[in-house]
């Protein structure tokens, strides 16, 4: 298993290089370093000298991928791509184009993201499982079919409507919670109720439907018949046989998401004014702040890869049949 993890981590390096190459290409096809300087310097009194100074200060005064003037290895190393990527691999994200330290920003904004994403994730899974179990209890009645229909309806509503509706009703009309904002203090939960609620409700449709399918799939397995032949009650079977088995695909399906929780949710964060990484990313895209975009892509890729590895590990943990090699 250790060897397996090490191998997966080594495999991550070419992937990250590829990711970086793609990010750089995409970004610099659109923008030249000059464009970046102009966007950062504002609208008034932008002189070529100011642009040159900005590029020098921020390290964009080099060729992108190949330095024709550089001798030998310098042809590749003395480039924007190499210098900027190398720093990323050392987890040195540097400063954003507007001059703020990205590491500090990321490490402070990570927590609000997590504060929303983690409860949404956990409560979401819990609620979905409960609802799915309830529906499985209805199984083979007309209610079951209606429940599935309702799930599909819930799935068919755009996330935006959940957010808009939630804010309009709960915060604006009923005045139960603040409409947006976040404070990292004892009363932080007050701000989290609504985003978590919206996140959970929006996820019920697809989540509960998926879990229901998993439960029913397990319910058709031979060992369930065995358990019934033993004389176990329906509820007993549900909890001692079906649930643990259905948890395998559930767990492994969601484990890949856990690291990405740090990245937060783009929409929820921007609608609810939560200063997390999701809105950080959105702002960076909007203001075309390449340093942040580059770093976030890098972090996102790493988290994704970690998620994949965790998934594999969680398989071995949840399912005694699986061994890694």
């Amino acid at each position, binding site marked *: 298993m250790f*060897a397996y993890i*090490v*191998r997966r981590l*080594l495999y991550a390096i070419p992937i990250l290089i590829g990711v970086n190459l793609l990010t750089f290409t995409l970004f610099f096809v659109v923008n030249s370093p000059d464009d970046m300087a102009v966007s950062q310097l504002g609208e008034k009194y932008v002189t070529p000298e100011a642009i040159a100074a900005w590029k020098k200060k921020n390290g964009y005064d080099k060729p992108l991928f190949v330095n024709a003037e550089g001798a030998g290895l310098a042809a590749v190393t003395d480039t924007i791509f190499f210098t900027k990527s190398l720093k990323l691999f050392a987890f040195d994200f540097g400063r954003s184009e507007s001059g703020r330290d990205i590491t500090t920003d990321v490490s402070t904004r990570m927590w609000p993201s997590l504060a929303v994403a983690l409860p949404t994730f956990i409560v979401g899974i819990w609620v979905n499982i409960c609802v799915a179990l309830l529906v499985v209890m209805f199984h*083979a009645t007309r209610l079951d079919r209606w429940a599935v229909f309702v799930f599909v309806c819930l799935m068919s509503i755009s996330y935006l409507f959940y957010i808009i509706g939630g804010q309009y009703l709960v915060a604006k009309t009923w005045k139960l919670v603040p409409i947006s904002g976040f404070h990292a203090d004892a009363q932080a939960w007050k701000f989290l109720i609504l985003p978590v609620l919206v996140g959970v409700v929006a996820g019920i449709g697809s989540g509960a439907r998926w879990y229901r399918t998993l439960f029913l799939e397990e319910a*058709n*397995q*031979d*060992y369930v*018949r*065995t*358990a*019934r*032949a*033993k*004389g*176990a*009650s*329906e509820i*007993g079977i549900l909890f*001692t*046989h079906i649930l*643990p*088995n259905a948890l*395998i695909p559930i767990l492994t399906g969601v484990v890949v998401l856990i690291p990405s929780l740090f990245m937060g949710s783009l929409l929820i964060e921007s609608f609810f004014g939560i200063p997390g990484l999701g809105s950080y990313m959105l702002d960076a895209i909007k203001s075309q702040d390449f340093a942040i975009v580059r770093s976030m892509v890098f972090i996102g890729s790493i988290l994704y890869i970690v998620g994949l590895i965790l998934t594999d590990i969680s398989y071995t943990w*949840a*399912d*005694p*049949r699986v061994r890694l*090699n």
Partner: protein
Amino acid sequence: MSGHVSMKVTDLRVAVAEDGEAILEGVSFELHPGKIFALVGESGSGKSVTSLAAMRLLPEALAITGGAVSVGEEDLFDLSESQMQRVRGRRVAMIFQNAMSALNPVQTAGQQVAETLRLHTSLSGDALRQRVVQLFAEVGIPDPEDRFSFYPHQLSGGQQQRVMIAMALACEPEILIADEPTTALDVTIQEQVLDLIRELTESRKLAVLLITHDMGVVRNTADEVAVMYRGEIIERAPVDDFFHNPQQAYSRRLIDALPDLSRFQSIAVEEPLLRLDEVKVYFPIRRGVLQRVVDHTRAVDGVSLSIGKGETYALVGESGSGKSTLGRAILNLDEMAGGQIRFHGEPLQDLTRRQMLPYRKRIQVIFQNPYSSMNPRLTVGEIIAEGMVSLGLGLNAAEREERIGQLLQRVQLEGDFSQRYPHEFSGGQLQRIAIARALAVEPELIICDEPTSALDVSIRAEVLELLQELQREFGVSYLFITHDLSIVPSLAHHVGVMQLGKIVEQGTAEQILTAPRHPYTRALLASVPRVDP
């Protein structure tokens, strides 16, 4: 057969819930303590449905429409579901066909047995554990203490089935329903499990309902037998009577499918067609950070054999013995690690895809699963024509069409089947089509990889018959790969017994079947059911 009746099934009727199509049309029988009642029939005859209906474990698509199942005083069909839960496992227990899937994969074997006890007794803690270990010992699981915390996948097939039996017997039920308890097992283990059931029936005075398709099992195990055919019991008799004097033609056919170890193929010619010398096929085992090859799985480990022209060579072995890999190696589908294959004296190994082409025409193959060996999206005609086209037999479309018609007729199908699709045919018909496909390129050797193991016994015989006819007609040789010794005598000239990648014994069919030398061969042979030993 008189005395106490443990379970009485009267006029049991089951139908498809949706359209009311009848599955069981009035099945009745009784079970007696200490006796094994065998319910025999081919797939789809309704024998499993009978057992599930009796336990009220039918899937939702099926519904009980009539009849009664009484255990003691109680009619099980009058009980509520929650009362029924008290009957299951305690008074009536059940063991299922495929133990691997019938056991919960994420619970240890011990826990699963303990669950039955916990449901029906007040045992708990250490006492519970002790009881489970005791049960394990009783059903013959080695190291019962350790096995308690083994997961099902860590146990062998036979042990899994023993766990099932332990689970069923945990609460000392009066009645045991065994639904094909040995079907998925290798023959040697099959015998041991049946012995165990027999033994327990005696010692515990169990009333056993044994459901099986295997007449050999019935012959060796049951006290009374009933034959099911299309949802009805068509014949019911004590075992001896049944085998000596079957009343129904259908029963007769079932009995006839049992092997006859007195007639063998005479050895015809000695012109070698295919020669294998020390053939080895290894699969690498990779480990470590860099995935270096640290070892090899020796799937085929030095096999030598020779097949003559117009001869059938049966390669017998249990699953995992490497017999199918050998077949693939001959076809150049798996790479060889060593040794030589000579066809007409010319080496086949190390040929490229292109160089292999001329031989493809001459060596053909028939696979085990007829359903997966036909592309569902092509018509039968297209399937048969494929080889003719790609191997360049030089026929035009009309000629091909004509040849396909002939071939289909030759394998006892109708010529106009060529426009139809595989899913419209039964397994037996598909296997005939597979034979036609192989014959289409006029091969000299056909590798038959378990061609009949997916078929019901009555159809199996027909297909084997056809193969023999074709051999006589076209002088084609067969390499017949099988796990089932019982079909060998009527078919093979030579037999090789394979175990763990090696041939442990080979010789003429008569030699092997009448005077086996290797203990493994003997074990295999012992488990073959016979009508009249």
